[in-house]
């Protein structure tokens, strides 16, 4: 009897584990994809590793993009990298929460040491090192468009990075501005002393 029970358990568990570990074969109906391509080089410029991930967007990104779906006056709350909530505004001259953080001056690529799994509520990169991204380049093939930005980081001592993010700066004047995290991904990679890290973010539209 005991032998039958063990055998039954094995016949239940093995197919369970096989199915559980299979990659998801979900329908991919995305029209916008965000790719983060991270590459590390040693001091001599030799490529050490490449990490490619499909970068998830934060709630901040959703709140910003959905401003364009608004038919009227609206404020969408976003959380800045300090954890404070601000409103992005559309539809009229004055915001409920003036000033209006709506013009943009910077896009940064950030790397850091946070290890928490991605959540849409992420708003910061732990110990973030920020680099101004390159001006976005656009390439078009048919109806498909790639927009890409990149940044390069240099490290004088051995460093391990565990997260990468994209931070947008919204401002209402030269002195009043907020920084918000719009995309984040976790990685776990090391760069040796004297090494460099290049990060490229590619947003693919109508993919």
């Amino acid at each position, binding site marked *: 009897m005991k032998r039958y029970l063990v*055998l*039954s358990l094995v*016949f*239940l*568990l*093995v*197919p*369970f584990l*096989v*199915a*559980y570990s*299979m990659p*998801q074969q979900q*329908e991919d*109906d*995305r*029209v916008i994809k965000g790719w983060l391509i991270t590459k590390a080089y040693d001091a001599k410029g030799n490529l050490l590793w490449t990490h490619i991930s499909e970068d*998830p*967007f934060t*709630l901040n*990104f*959703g709140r910003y*993009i*959905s401003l*364009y*779906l*608004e*038919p*009227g006056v609206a404020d969408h709350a976003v959380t800045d990298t300090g954890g404070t909530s601000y409103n992005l*505004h*559309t*539809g*009229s*001259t*004055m915001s409920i929460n003036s000033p209006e953080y*709506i*013009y*943009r*001056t*910077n896009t940064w690529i950030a790397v850091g040491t946070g290890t928490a799994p*991605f959540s*849409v509520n992420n708003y910061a990169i732990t110990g973030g090192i920020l680099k*101004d*991204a390159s*001006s*976005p380049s*656009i390439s*078009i093939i048919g*109806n498909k*468009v790639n*927009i890409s*930005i990149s940044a390069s980081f240099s490290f004088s001592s051995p460093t391990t990075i565990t997260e990468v993010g994209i931070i*947008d700066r919204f*401002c209402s*004047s*030269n002195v009043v501005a907020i920084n918000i995290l*719009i995309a984040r*991904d976790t990685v776990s990679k090391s760069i040796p002393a004297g090494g460099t890290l290049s990060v490229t973010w590619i947003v693919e*539209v*109508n993919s």
Partner: protein
Amino acid sequence: MRNLVFGVLLICLILVGYYVGLLMRPKEVKGGVSVTLVVRQYRDGKLIKEVVEKKDPFTNNFVQLLWSAMKTNNGACTGSYTVVDIGGTSRNLYVCRSDFAAEYPLQGNGAYIWIGNGAAPFSLNDYKLSGTSTLKTTPSIPSESIADPKINYTISASFSLSSAMTVSEVGFSRLLRAPDYSNYEFLLMHDVLSTPISAAAGDTITVTYIVRING
């Protein structure tokens, strides 16, 4: 006989284990944006046709807005981009304006969902619907639902047809503020339906866009 029953039981266990394993697979977080477009035709209050389109494409106008969201000026307040309004005129919009005057694009107020009878295939450079007969109306305020890591935004609109119409295309447009302090309308999404809807006078057409972020 007992062995036969046990054999059948083992096969059942294999199937149950495999099925439960499939259901319990951890969900992979894939960044990105998906759009589902649902067009329904009602006659006398009854649903008579539904067309669901996925991978609803964005126009170059939207691409430019996204570009502006990725644009860096290394701290300087400058930069503009060009979009084409629904009348076919190119307009420059600001990424940032040096005097910080309140004429940022999102100061524009208004959005529309369109339906039309055009059948021209989608092109990135579409700035209006291709049909000769078109209707537009203001959509609902976007509703947000979050199930981390997924975020959905839903807008919808309803059209009561006073005359017969073949609905073969759908669009979404947004009014944005240009540097001349005027609002202009820009087509951001355009989809040609895989199955056109032949609607009669008196029919109601509803259009729902579901914009899904991270899945």
